[in-house]
């Protein structure tokens, strides 16, 4: 079963991504959410999702840290991680690469592009 993890400290963004990907649920994809880095790490460890939409700017554990720990410490090298950063926000591209992310998308995101990416990664 395909699983997508949505991580963002802002509830409305989580909801929007969920809503965007909702139609995938009908195709058997499970959508999980986490509202901070720690929850995200727990969900990564237990559910081992295929795809993660991961916000960068979060209190305590940032998206960079989550990504790095998932890829390096949790051995989730096959988990596709999309970093989401707000447009206009200072974004350390090198840090993003170093953390092992597979893709960067900016917010406000294009819902159609996000859904298409999910379909592409999951192969559905």
């Amino acid at each position, binding site marked *: 079963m395909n699983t997508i993890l949505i991580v963002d400290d802002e509830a409305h963004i989580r909801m929007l991504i969920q*809503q965007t990907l909702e139609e995938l649920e009908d195709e058997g994809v499970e959508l999980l959410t986490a509202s901070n880095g720690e929850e995200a790490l727990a969900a990564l460890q237990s559910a081992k999702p295929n795809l993660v939409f991961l916000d960068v700017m979060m209190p305590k554990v940032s998206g960079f840290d989550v990504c790095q720990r998932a890829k390096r410490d949790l051995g989730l090298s096959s988990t596709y991680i999309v970093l989401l950063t707000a*447009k206009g926000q200072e974004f350390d591209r090198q840090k993003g690469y170093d953390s092992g992310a597979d893709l960067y998308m900016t917010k*406000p*995101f294009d*819902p159609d592009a996000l859904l298409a990416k999910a379909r592409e990664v999951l192969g559905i």
Partner: protein
Amino acid sequence: MAAARLGQIIGPKGAATRLVQDLADALHTPIVIEDAAGRLLHGDRTEPNVLRHPITSGGSDVGWVTGPDRVRPLAALVEHLLAREVERRALGTEVLQLYREINLIYSFSEKLAALLDLEGVARLTIQEARHLIDATDGAVLLLDEDTGALATIAGFGDSLPHLTGFTRGVGIIGSIAASGVAEIVNDAENDPRRIKDGTGVRALLCAPMKVGERAIGIIALGNTTRAAYTAAELKLLNTLALQSATAIENARLFERTIHAALERERLLAANKVVEVARAKLEREFELAATIQADLFPATLPALDGYDLAARNRPARQCGGDYYDALPIAAVAESTRVLLCVADVSGKGMPAALLMSHMQATLRALVGRTESLPLLASQASDLLYASTAPNRYVTAAFLDLEPASGRSRFVSAGHVDGLVAGADGSMMRLTSTGAPLGLLPPGLPYDETPFTIEPGDCVLLYSDGVVDAQNAAGEEFGDERLLAHVRASFDQPAAVIVERVIAEIDRFAGDTPQFDDITMLALRRSMT
């Protein structure tokens, strides 16, 4: 979809799964919940003849609660939970749609910022509008603020972009351009303002593109299949129209700036060409001035008992004044000399050319005519034959026999000459005939005979001397001329000439020299 929702509420991870189990325990009865397709969502299938209570959503059965009659309220509870879930999802869909719009507007702004051409902005606008709002036709029309005409610069579809002839206030689109208020026209075919029939457009959405209070164009979307647009869609189009209007204004400004820069460059290039031509002309003028200067006598003849000086100062590089002093060879028994001061009509290069003509004519004729009036007459005929009717020369001729001082004077329409007598007297040498080359051949010239007594000073000059003006518009005049000549009466002729010219300059002050100045002074010694 609702069936899937049911699975999410009651399924293994469903929010209500635990609640249902608690209720089953409380009611001491097994509860079975299955969806419309017969998939088991909760409990275990038991004996077949128990009651099935339908769960309905949106008017159709989406599942069943199976159990004794007392579990019937559970079906109602699940229905309620399902309705809430459906509502939540509907809200979510709406929010997502709004988010999608925000994102598109955001990216529209970004794309607009990168465009600097009018057509590009219009194309992007109509493309984005089409992406956001369901339409079969669309057009961006720009308003010509002078004529009020609306011209389509971008569009799509078979009908709308091909319509022409809209002007401010005429037709549905023209009316909206005039009112400046966005509008939904859901019965376009029957709208009283319409000027086009059979367009097939049923519903129309029009938003003015405004910069401040000024409408600079219209975005129109039309639909040939759909009958109605909504207020939300109008609001969206209005937002696009506003952003687009600003971008179009910027593009226009940019175009104007570019145009102005190109025009400036073109003018600079043209200026350079003119400058090169001017420099060339300048060089030619300088050359002409040099050539002309050579036409004046290099030295004046030395006359025993006389002191002769002359000076010419043109107002421009080349002048139309001329003076000469030529021995008259034909009369060999006594040495006589012809003095001449002439002034050619016009100024600059044409005058200079005529002056050279005059010089050649005079030098050819001198000594070959019986008298001074005849010389003047022949010179006039020759000039008349070879110049345009409006070209002529005024000239003063003095035929002097130095030994006796006997002189004959002929003036062809020239400004008066003066004879300042040693005794303090003054005689004017006035005109004795018409200017040379002005009138048809055969003109008679009179001559004025007089004698230059010892100490007398004869002044021949061009009108540039007496007509010289100061800032107040006063003329130098012959009174001043005479006064200055008298003041330097004991000086050599050359000094008199230089002083008079210096006095003219002092008199004129900052007023630029308007006319050529030529002056010739002849003084007979006292002894």
